[in-house]
Structures are given as C-alpha cells and as structure tokens.
C-alpha cells in the first residue's frame, strides 16, 4: 500500500511540476543557460585545477542545478501547499505522511537527473568535455544523490515560510549560497573574503564532492559527506519543528 501510494503521489507530483513554468524555468533552464554562457564561453582551452574550464564548470553547474531542483521542489511547493490549505486536505485523507515527503524527494531527484543529463549533453557536445565512462557515472550519481541534503533544507524552508514569501526566500538563500561556494565562478577565482566563507555553506561541500570525481576538488570527500549529512539533519529537524508548530494554528 505504502509503495503504491508513494508511486502514485510521485507521478502526480512530477506531472504537476513539469506543467508549471515557475518551477521548470528556474530549475532546468537557468543552469543550462548559465553553463552555456560561462562554461562554454571559456571553452576547452582554459585549464583550471588540472582540467578544462568546461569540465570543471560542468561539475559546479551540475551542483547548482540539482540544488535548485531540491530547494524549489520542496521549499516553494511545501510552503504553497501548507499556506493554501492543500496539505490539510492531504492530512485529512488516509495518505501516509511519509508518501508526501518521499514523492517530493523522488520528484526533485528526477528533475535533478534531467538537469544533470542535459548539462552533460551540452558539455560533451559543445564544450569538448571528455571523461571516462566511469567518471560520467560517478559524477552523475554524486550530483543526484547529493541533492538529498538540499531537499531537507528546502523542506525546512517550506515548513516555516509563507506561501508568498517562499520563492523570494529560496532565491535569497540559493543564489548567494551558490555564488559564494564557487558554483558559478571557480572558488580559485573568488575574492579571498568570499572563499573563506565557502566552507560554511552546504553548496561548497557538494561542489567539492562533484569536483573530486574529476580530481579537481579540495579537501577530503569523507568530510564533505559528513558536512552534508549535518546540514541534512539540521534541515530535517527544523522541518519537523515547523510542521509541528503549524498544528497549533488555525487556517481559514
């Protein structure tokens, strides 16, 4: 029962979002456009951290892309469904609450997979990115699985923010956190002030994990994974607090 409900819920969630330009454009089109602009403009000749610019930025824009899928897919959609009462209708039904969260997680991972594959295609076709088959697969897996902690952070935002403020809050967190972690411009090229902040951001750790699969990352992979796990736990804890707080309120 739980598995079939989660499957139906995931299918509906995916269908709902793919028809929503406010989700599809920032999550799928922006990372592609940014990568095309920055990644391909510098081309295959600019070497950085032992690899080409197009290859390096494929990892970081991949991270940027999957983080967006998770933050928007959870942050905005949960805030809207909570604030407008749809979550109450779900909670009055026999739907197991876990199915709701899992469906959003699988949907955001599916969008993450799509955005990564689209970036790979552009990088290989127009950026001259050449990787061993195994490296392509590892990079793909790191990016898609690495989006999970950001789903927890998104759920936390969605459980606390109001339906109208959520898109702005997500952008205010997402964009600076991506820039300062070196997902847009390599961390080596950031001003030292910003680069010093980076290790405190979850985006930095995902970016470095992804770069690590290309041999271009800093620091130990195990520590990056630990940092991401800590962020995931913090997000889940905050989300649990927000959803519990909701119960004491009356809507409508």
């Amino acid at each position, binding site marked *: *029962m739980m598995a*079939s*409900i989660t499957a*139906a*819920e995931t*299918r*509906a969630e995916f*269908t*709902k*979002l793919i*028809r*929503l330009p406010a989700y599809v454009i920032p999550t799928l089109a922006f990372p592609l456009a940014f990568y095309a602009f920055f990644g391909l403009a510098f081309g295959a000749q600019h070497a950085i951290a032992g690899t080409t610019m197009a290859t390096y930025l494929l990892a970081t824009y991949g991270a940027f892309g999957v983080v967006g899928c998770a933050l928007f897919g959870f942050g905005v959609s949960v805030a*809207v*469904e909570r*604030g*407008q*009462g*749809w979550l*109450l*209708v779900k*909670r*009055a*039904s*026999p*739907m*197991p*609450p876990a199915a709701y969260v899992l469906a959003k997680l699988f949907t955001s991972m599916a969008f993450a997979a799509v955005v990564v594959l689209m970036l790979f295609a552009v990088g290989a076709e127009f950026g001259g990115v050449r990787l061993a088959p195994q490296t392509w697969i590892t990079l793909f897996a790191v990016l898609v699985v690495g989006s999970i902690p950001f789903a927890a952070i998104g759920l936390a935002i969605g459980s606390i923010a109001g339906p109208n403020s959520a898109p702005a809050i997500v952008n205010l967190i997402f964009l600076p956190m991506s820039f300062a972690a070196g997902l847009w411009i390599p961390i080596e090229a950031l001003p030292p002030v910003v680069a010093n902040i980076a290790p405190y951001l979850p985006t930095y750790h995902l970016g470095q994990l992804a770069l690590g699969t290309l041999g271009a990352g800093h620091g130990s992979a195990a520590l990056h994974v630990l940092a991401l796990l800590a962020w995931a736990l913090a997000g889940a804890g905050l989300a649990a607090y927000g959803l519990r707080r909701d*119960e*004491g309120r*009356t*809507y*409508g």
Partner: protein
Amino acid sequence: MHDDDIPARLTQAGKHYGIVTALDAVDLELRRGETLALLGPNGAGKTTAIRILLGIIAPDAGTAALFGRNPRVAANRNRFGAMLQVGGVPATLTVVEHISLFSSYYPRPLPLDQTIALAGLRGLEKRLYGKLSGGQKQRVAFALALCGDPEALILDEPTSALDIESRFALWECIRGYVARGRSVLLTTHDLVEAEALADRIAVISAGRIVAEGTTAEVKARAGATLVDSYLALTRTAASEMSLS
C-alpha cells in the same frame, strides 16, 4: 452501541487556542446511516470539531474516534472521505489525475468513471483544475471525498461558497450518497441546508453543543420555526459566554 455503528464520535472534546476556547467538552456522535448537521454561526467551533475528528489537530481534552479508532493514524481514516474549507488545490493537474491520486490512498476505491459520474464531472475529466468554475471545483472536492468508496463523509461547509444552482447540484450528490445507506456529517451555518439534508441537527455555539435532536425536536426546543429556535439557542450561549 458497538464501535461499528458509530462512524465518528467526539467525547468531551476540548480545544483552546491561547485564551480562546474553540471547543468546550463537546460530545458528538455520527450514527450509521444518518446525516447529521453540525449547525452554528461562524466561529462557533464547527471547523475545529471537524479537524479534530479527521486527526488534523489533537484535542487538548477528551477524545475523538473514527469507528472506535484514533483518527491521528492515517490508515484509520480510510473508511472516510472529507471535504474541507480550503483552497489551494494544485491547478496543474487534471480532474481525473486528482481523482486517481486520491483513489490510490484507499484499499477499495470506486472505479474512476463511477466517481466522475457521481460527482457530476462527466466531460471535465481532462480539464486542468485551474480552469474549472467555482461549482466545478467544489464537485472535484466532493469527488476526492467520495472516490475511496468511504462508509462516511465529513463535509465542512460544503456549499458555503456556491451559487444556488451549484449548491442544489451538490445537495443531489450528497443525497445520492446517503441513499446508498452511508453516513454524512456536515457543518453548515445555513438552516435551510441543515433542514434539507439532515436527519439530526446538533447546534453549536461558542464551542458548546447547545441543542441536539431531530429537526423537529430542535425546532420544538425554543420556537415555532427552526430559525426561531436557532437564534434563541445561539444567543443564550453567546450571552452566557460574555458573562463568564
């Protein structure tokens, strides 16, 4: 009576929001096969009572039970369908996509085309929810309540936002459901609706049940017409509240 004969029950249920008492020691019983109207003015506690019965919120005092079971457990709600007073239904799914998703929550749902026919949604199956009229949207909400072939429906002000024609259409849907031997608990602030649909009426005011019985009994309590008794009952409760 056996648990199976009481689809929904509140026992001495209480709920406070800060210093506001939304519900005060409420006893309420929906019996098998009946339509019970919880009648009261806005802010009387109707929605709080419904939300406690559906497990959305927990009471501060007393208990709620669905067929004798705790409504806070999702699986214990699978013999019920509900309509709440909320908007925010995702606009980018079609009528049939919404119904088939909710059908998946139930062990033995109605066939999709039967739900669509019972809710009066034929011809609208492929339309996006966001493109429906107000009356059509409310019929989708009814379809979501109905699709699991539940033994009882809990409807919070099902027709309050509707025009007369849509409201009569929804009344027909509710009557059709009751005619199959099922139970309905509905809230309303509209006497006409209570009288048109209900076998029994419980009048709620300022968080307390102030009268309960058949439509005729409630009328007999305090006036020649239901309107008279309703006004008399709810005013008495409200003035007691302001004195205390």
